[in-house]
């Protein structure tokens, strides 16, 4: 756990909104999100599938498909990403901001050797020769406890197990020692043992490279272990944000509380109903249809995000009540 310095944020996002044009309807996947990430800090972005957390991450690297559009501002080390030229973006991706993609089964090119796919990012940004790149990949693999790395380098993705593929993706993401690593659902689809290994792995890497990390996950327990700060997203909005200890100790937003209650360790109570479709959003508080403590005003008034403690923000009219 790294203590938080009050220096300027590495990444600061202000009122970011991302829309998708699908036939006639416009879908707002990310709605006026603002958050900061400080150097060497791990911010966890927690939410159910479909809440827009992956879209947020992809907006940072501007990797969204052509039918999308982003507004607001994303400043990284003073550079406004939304206005950056394609050339500037290209230099930043992989070198300044690394990404560890979501599904390990499909995120590796099936027809290319895994070693080669990791060397590619090194040769691209670090201007190193083939041999030197090969060497650094081998010790990267060994650092990530990949058994027999020299041999495994020449394997194809289908010849590796799920856990090993996950390690390859991590090594790819951290190869150029980027200052910020976007980690998308690292534990999705892994069994308990592997999940633990990956969590430790990510923790070591963050510490070792002193890089900050944006951890995107639906699993609160992973966020609790790794993150310095946690931001909870629901239907495209941040509903609560604060230090992980603060949120775990005293969750203010009803959705955060029910998320924590649904953890196996805390009684395994599922949240009723479905998260709303992003093209048919309810007028008032978006969690109102599923909120246990909702009252009539919640249905009509859309709450703003307000500070309810030191660096602790909540988007709920009755946050202090629960």
């Amino acid at each position: 756990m790294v203590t938080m310095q009050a220096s300027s944020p590495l990444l600061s996002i202000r009122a970011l909104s991302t829309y998708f044009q699908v036939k006639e309807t416009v879908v707002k996947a990310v709605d006026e999100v603002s958050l900061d990430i400080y150097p060497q800090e791990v911010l966890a972005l927690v939410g159910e599938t479909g809440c827009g957390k992956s879209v947020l991450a992809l907006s940072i690297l501007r990797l969204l498909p052509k039918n999308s559009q982003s507004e607001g501002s994303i400043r990284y080390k003073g550079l406004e990403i939304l206005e950056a030229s394609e050339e500037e973006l290209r230099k930043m991706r992989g070198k300044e901001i690394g990404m560890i993609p979501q599904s390990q089964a499909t995120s590796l090119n099936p027809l290319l050797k895994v070693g080669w796919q990791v060397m590619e990012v090194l040769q691209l940004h670090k201007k190193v020769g083939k041999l030197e790149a090969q060497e650094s990949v081998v010790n990267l693999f060994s650092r990530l406890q990949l058994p027999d790395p020299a041999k495994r380098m020449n394997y194809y993705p289908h010849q590796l197990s799920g856990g090993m593929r996950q390690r390859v993706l991590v090594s790819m993401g951290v190869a150029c020692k980027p200052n910020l690593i976007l980690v998308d659902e690292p534990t999705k689809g892994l069994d308990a043992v592997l999940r633990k290994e990956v969590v430790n792995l990510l923790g070591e890497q963050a510490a070792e490279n002193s890089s900050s990390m944006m951890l995107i996950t639906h699993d609160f327990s992973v966020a609790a272990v790794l993150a310095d700060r946690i931001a909870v997203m629901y239907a495209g909005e941040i509903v609560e944000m604060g230090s992980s200890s603060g949120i775990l100790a005293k969750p203010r937003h009803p959705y955060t509380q029910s998320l924590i209650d649904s953890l196996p360790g805390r009684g395994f109570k599922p949240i009723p109903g479905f998260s709303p479709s992003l093209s048919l959003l309810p007028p008032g508080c978006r969690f109102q249809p599923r909120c246990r403590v909702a009252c009539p005003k919640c249905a009509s008034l859309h709450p703003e995000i307000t500070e309810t403690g030191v660096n602790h923000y909540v988007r709920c009219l009755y946050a202090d009540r629960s």
Partner: protein
Amino acid sequence: MDTTIAVDKSYKKGVVRFVKQDKLLVYSAAVVLIIILIALMAPLIMPHDPTAVSLTEKVNPPSFQYPCGTDPLGRCVLSRIIQGTRTSLVAAAIIVAISGTGGVLLGLISGYKGGLVDSLIMRLVDVLLAFPSIILAMALVVSMGPGLGSVIIALTLVHWTGYARLVRAEVLTLKQSEFVEAARAMGNSSVRILFKYILPNVIAPVIVMASLDIAQIVLSMASLSFLGLGAQPPDAEWGAMINQGREFIRTAPHVTLFPGLALMVTILAFSLLGDSLRDYFDPRLREGYIE
């Protein structure tokens, strides 16, 4: 729960919205409909008797009286094209019907039964596909004597293989699916499972293949007639008309151009229909957005 009903409504609205948007499906279906109408009302809309020979007016260029000009025996090319629509579509319909049902049945059986039956049918399919279908059709037609009848028989014997393979592949995947196992668990006989559970899921791809197949059959029939094996004079069939116009290529190209145009438009319409039907039935191809 209100949310479930909402889902169904949006699906129907989705269908209408999809059709409105996918103009290709609408246009191709319209053209196909027009062609079928022409075939049905052939005798009514023909300006002249397609078999009326008037030697003095042979090979006239297109005029008001003969919109598409006349052929080497002075017959109205337009009327023969319209007559040709009927011959081609009726024959194609028969071929698709027989080879379709035959192929689907064999595909169902070989896919579901497996074992010896499956390998027997599949080996037969391999043999039939061992060389291009047009050559097999040619050998059959020559041996049965040229004429529309033998062309229909030949193409039926050749075209069922496509359906059999398609259906067998679908059955193999569906066989493992949960709902088929559930149906079997509930004690349904294999015949009921085939027809009540598996067949409905196979119909969509078969329809897509059928409309693409019609385009292919019309083309094969025209090719066979072009080689002198298909419809015999005085029957009006596009391939034969194109062949008959061969000699007049320089002096009267219209004799060859118009039947060729009709043939191409028909093939285009049915292929387009098949393509857009495939897109319609296979949502994956529609432009969705990332979750």
